[in-house]
């Protein structure tokens, strides 16, 4: 048994193959987003890069974590990403309910939409409506991943356009189920 494996075994089973939603949120928060600053700031160097300068009322691109921080101090308005609006999501929802595959959404749409709707719902038009469409969208996709489970086998598994948060949620038991099937499966003619 390798050292890695032993370290892994000391974690609770659900954390051996997946990270927590909060960790995914942290990763997603590295992405850049446009804001309209309400304060001026010179170009500043951070470990992940240099951002700014902030010159109201000109737009600036900064990481989400920074935007959230400023927003909570009421020092900026956040501009919703192009996909975070009712029309776009409604179109995806229609696609989701009429077609078999998963619709194409940004890989980290769950994390980003949750954070933005949480702190900046006053900057996003129709935030309430977006929330409800997102909820429907998630449910429609969940139903599809459930169907995927029905077709599980020991070898491979593919769910195109499945998103980071969704993958993370199903990973622990999908991985384990496949491992079990791998054990139970016996190729015909195998000695």
């Amino acid at each position, binding site marked *: *048994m390798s050292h890695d494996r032993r370290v892994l075994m000391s974690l*609770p*089973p*659900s954390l051996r193959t*997946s990270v*927590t*939603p*909060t960790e995914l*949120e942290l990763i997603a928060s590295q992405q850049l987003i446009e804001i309209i600053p309400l304060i001026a700031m010179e170009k500043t160097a951070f470990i992940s890069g240099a951002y700014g300068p902030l010159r109201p009322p000109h737009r600036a691109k900064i990481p989400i974590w920074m935007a*959230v921080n400023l927003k*909570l101090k009421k020092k900026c308005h956040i501009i919703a990403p192009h996909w975070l609006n009712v029309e776009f999501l409604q179109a995806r929802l229609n696609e989701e309910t009429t077609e078999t595959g998963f619709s194409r959404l940004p890989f980290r749409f769950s994390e980003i939409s*949750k*954070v933005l709707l*949480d*702190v900046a719902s006053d900057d996003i038009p129709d935030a309430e409506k977006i929330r409800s469409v997102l909820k429907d969208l998630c449910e429609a996709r969940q139903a599809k991943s*459930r169907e995927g*489970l*029905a077709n*599980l086998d*020991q070898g491979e598994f593919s769910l195109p356009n499945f998103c980071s*948060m969704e993958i993370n*949620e*199903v*990973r*622990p*038991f999908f991985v*384990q*189920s496949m*491992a*079990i*099937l791998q*054990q*139970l*499966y*016996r190729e*015909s*003619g*195998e*000695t």
Partner: protein
Amino acid sequence: MDNDYFSIDAILAENQKFQCTFKQEIPDMGHLGGGSERDIQVQSKRQIPIWLAYTIIYSDWADFDIPAAFGPKVRNALKAEPRSVRLANLVGAGGSWYGFGKTTMDILSDEQAQVLSEMLTTTFKGRLIEVIDQAQHFAALGPVGASGNTGDSSQAFREGLDATERDLFTLAQESSKKMKRWYEETEKSKR
């Protein structure tokens, strides 16, 4: 279920007995069956623990019967409806039906092993969705509703889960719970 030396599951899966019919007389070993006879007679039947059964079967001292847990009665019940069979009852408390099945499969001849493998995999797949559905349902209920009634059949199903499925249930439930907690927490509540 794997044959890893360090796997607790593998050790637990061997906590079962095989019914062996001896082909040779074994002197001074009558106590193995808990009987009062001194020797094991030819054609006598004994319940032999798996760890010992390997040696006895491979040395051709005895034949073994396919355990009742995988016998024709169970097979027909599973064919009719995999979800209505209480796997836990077949292997005793905390037992792993699939693990025992895998162990049995490894000792059987090719042809029989193939049949058993098919039975194990179809059963596993047939029950998997129900396991996950219920796990997610219970995660959504939270601690308060955990005792809520969801019908007799689903409760019977839960009680009939074997150790392998129970693990999956826990994994799926924890995963869903984590997601739920994440969705419900807000930036404002964190501060």
